[in-house]
C-alpha cells in the first residue's frame, strides 16, 4: 500500500512543475493595467446584460486569484475553496437587515468570517499531506455546505434573498450604492484590480519567495530550519479572506445566496478556471475565469449550438478532458509555446 508521504510524493506531486510565479511575465504591469482600462471603458459599448456578464466574470476572477495564492504559489491543492466564497456571501446576506446595510460593516465582516473559518480549516488540514489534504479541505467545505443547506440558521436549500443592496454612506453622502448597476460594475472592477495588485506584491515579497521555496521543496526548507507551516497557514487564510470578498460581491450582484455556492462543484469549477488559464500565473487565473465562464455560456447557448446545447455537460466535459490532457499549462502555457515557436 502506498504510504502517501513516501513513494507517491516523489512520483506524483500535488501540482506539477510550475514556472516561478514571481517571475516577471511578458509586459510586466502594462498588460494588466491596459486590460483594466479597457474593462473600465466597456460600459460605453455594451448592453446592461453584457455588463452583468463582465461583473460575474470579474467576481470569479477574484475567486480564482485567491485560489491561485495557495495552489499556484504554495502548491497546495484545495478542493474546498468554495466554502470561503459561500461564507463571505452568507455573512453578507445574514448581516443585512430589511433596510440594507453599510459596506463599512459588511466588507470586514465577510472577509473576517471567511478568514476565521480558513484559519480553523487550515490549522487542521495542514497537518495532512498530499491526497489527504485535498480530501480534508473537501470535507471541511462539505461541513459548511451542510450547515447552510440543512439548518434553519443557514436558510435551507432554497437559499436566502438579499432585498436591499448595501451602500457606503460617509457624512450623510451616499458614496457608493451597490444597487446601481454602474456603481456595482466599478466597485467589482476596483476590487479585482486591488486583489491582483495585492497578490502580485505579496508574491514578490519575502513571504512570496518563502512560499515558492515551500512549493518547490518543502523538505529542504525544513531541513534548513525554516518553519513552513505558519507560511502555508498564512497563505491559506489570506486566500480564504479574498474568497470571502468575492462571496460578498457575488451575494450583492445576485441578490441571493444559495448553499450550492459552497458545493464541491463550485470548488471544482474554480480549480478548472486555474488550470484553463495556467497555474502559476496571476494573469492565468483571470484568463481562466474568463475562458471558463464564456465556454460554459457558449455550450449552453441554444442560439449558437442548437439542440447540442441541452447536452452541454457532455461538450463541456469532453472539452475539459481534451484541455487538461493536451494543455496542462493552460492558455498561458499555450501562449508561451506559440511565442516560443514564433521566436524560432
Amino acid at each position, binding site marked *: 500500500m502506498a504510504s502517501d508521504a513516501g513513494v507517491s510524493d516523489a512520483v506524483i506531486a500535488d501540482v506539477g512543475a510550475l514556472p516561478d510565479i514571481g517571475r516577471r511575465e511578458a509586459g510586466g504591469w502594462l498588460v494588466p493595467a491596459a486590460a483594466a482600462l479597457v474593462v473600465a471603458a466597456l460600459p460605453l459599448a455594451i448592453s446592461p446584460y453584457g455588463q452583468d456578464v463582465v461583473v460575474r466574470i470579474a467576481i470569479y476572477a477574484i475567486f480564482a486569484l485567491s485560489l491561485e495564492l495557495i495552489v499556484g504559489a504554495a502548491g497546495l491543492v484545495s478542493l474546498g475553496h468554495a466554502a470561503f466564497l459561500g461564507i463571505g456571501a452568507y455573512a453578507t446576506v445574514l448581516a443585512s437587515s430589511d433596510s440594507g446595510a453599510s459596506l463599512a460593516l459588511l466588507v470586514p465582516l465577510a472577509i473576517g468570517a471567511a478568514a476565521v473559518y480558513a484559519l480553523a480549516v487550515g490549522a487542521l488540514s495542514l497537518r495532512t499531506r498530499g491526497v489527504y489534504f485535498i480530501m480534508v479541505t473537501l470535507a471541511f467545505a462539505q461541513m459548511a455546505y451542510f450547515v447552510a443547506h*440543512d439548518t434553519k440558521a443557514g436558510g435551507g436549500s432554497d437559499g436566502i434573498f438579499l432585498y436591499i443592496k448595501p451602500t457606503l454612506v460617509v457624512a450623510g453622502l451616499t458614496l457608493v450604492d451597490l444597487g446601481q448597476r454602474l456603481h456595482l460594475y466599478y466597485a467589482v472592477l476596483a476590487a479585482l484590480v486591488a486583489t491582483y495588485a495585492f497578490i502580485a506584491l505579496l508574491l514578490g515579497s519575502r513571504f512570496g519567495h518563502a512560499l515558492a521555496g515551500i512549493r518547490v521543496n518543502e523538505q529542504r526548507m525544513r531541513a534548513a530550519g525554516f518553519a513552513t507551516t505558519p507560511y502555508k497557514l498564512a497563505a491559506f487564510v489570506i486566500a480564504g479572506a479574498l474568497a470571502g470578498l468575492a462571496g460578498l460581491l457575488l451575494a450583492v450582484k445576485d441578490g441571493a445566496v444559495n448553499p450550492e455556492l459552497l458545493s464541491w462543484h463550485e470548488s471544482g469549477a474554480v480549480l478548472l478556471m486555474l488550470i484553463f488559464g495556467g497555474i502559476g500565473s496571476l494573469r492565468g487565473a483571470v484568463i481562466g475565469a474568463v475562458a471558463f465562464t*464564456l465556454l460554459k455560456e457558449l455550450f449552453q447557448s441554444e442560439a449558437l449550438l442548437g439542440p447540442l446545447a441541452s447536452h452541454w455537460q457532455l461538450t463541456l466535459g469532453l472539452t475539459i478532458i481534451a484541455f487538461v490532457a493536451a494543455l496542462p499549462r493552460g492558455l498561458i502555457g499555450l501562449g508561451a509555446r506559440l511565442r516560443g515557436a514564433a521566436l524560432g
Partner: protein
Amino acid sequence: MPSTRHTLAALATLFVASVSLTASAQSTGPIKIGLMLPYTGTYAGLGNAIENGFKLYVQEQGGKLGGREVQYFKVDDESEPSKATDNVNKLIKRDNVDVLVGTVHSGVALAMAKAAKENNTLLVIPNAGADAITGPLCSANIVRSSFSNWQPGYAMGVVAGTKGIKRAMTITWAYAAGTESTKGFTEGLEKGGGKVVKDLTLPFPNVEFQALLTEIAAQKPDAVYAFFAGGGAVKFVKDYAAAGLNKTIPLYGPGFLTDGTLEAQGASAQNMLTTLHYADNLDTPRNNNFRKAYAIAFKTQPDVYAVQGYDAAQILAAGLKAVNGDLSKRDALTAAMHKITVDSPRGKFTISPAGNPVQDIYLREVKGNNNEFRSVAVKSLSDPARGCKL
C-alpha cells in the same frame, strides 16, 4: 506579446458571440416567450411535459396568441436556485423576452419571481408551488397555472379529518415545498379535530429513510402524511411498504407522491390515497380530448405537469386576446389574466387576486399504474395568500 494578445482576441470573439443582442417589438412581430425550465437533471421529464403542454395549446390556436406569432427562447435552469438569477437574466436582459414561463423547482421560481418583479416582466408559473410567490412576493404581473404547496396538503388534511385521524405525523424534505405542504396538511387536519404530533424532516435530497421509518413505527400514529417528489417519492413509498408500515398506518400525500412514479413504485403504492388538482382518468370531454391530442402530438401520455403547461398558455392567451396582442397595455392584460375562467382539462378554475388557481382538489386512489379519481376532496379551494398585499 502575441500570446496574451491572441488569447484576448479569441476571448473577445467568444464574448461577443455569447452576448449577441436581439431586437424587440412591442405590438407587432412575434411575441417572445422565454421558457425557463429544467431540461437536464431529475426534473427534466417535468420540464419537457410542461413545454409540450404549452406548445400544444399554442398549436391549437394556430400558432398565434393574441393575433401574433410566437417565438420561443429556452434556458435550462437545471433546477439550480444558485444559478437562477443568472439564468433568468439571460432571458430578460439578453433575449429581451416579453413573457417568462417557468419553472418546476420552487427555489428557482422564487428567483424568477424576484427578477420579474424588479424588471416588471410578465411571469406565468406552470408548476413551482412556493407559497411566497402568491404571498409576500405576489405581484400583478405574476400568475400561476398550477397550485400552491399549501393547497393539496390542506385538502388531504381535511380528508384525514373526515376519516377520524386524531394523531398524525408528517415527513418530508427540509425545504420550502415540503414544509409548506405539511403545514397545509396540519391546518386541514386541525379543522377536523386531529393534530400532528411530530414533523420529521431530512435534508433535501437525502433518501436514507430507514432511521425515520423506525421512528414512525415507534410513535405509532394514526396516519402519516409525506411530501416527496421524483426519486425520493419512489423510494419512500417503497421503503414504507417494505417496512410493513403500510399495513397498519395509512400513508397519505399530495399527488406528487404518486404522479409519474407508479411504474417504479409498483405494488407498494397500490390503494394509496392522494390529493391533487388533477386525476388522469377524469372522465370529462375536455380532459379526454386533451389527452388524445397530447398523445397524438407527443406519442406519450400527459400528466399533471403537461396540464399545467397547457393552462399556462391558456391564461396568457386570454390576457393577450383582451389587449389584441398589444403588450404595452400591461394593466388591461394582467387584469384579463386574473379575470379568466380557465377551461382546463382538470376542470374549470379561476385565478385569485394573488395570482393562484382557485380550484377543486380531488381525492385519488392508486389502482394499477393510474391515480384514479374518487371524489372531490375540497371544492374551489383558494390559497390563503398570507402576506400578499394585492
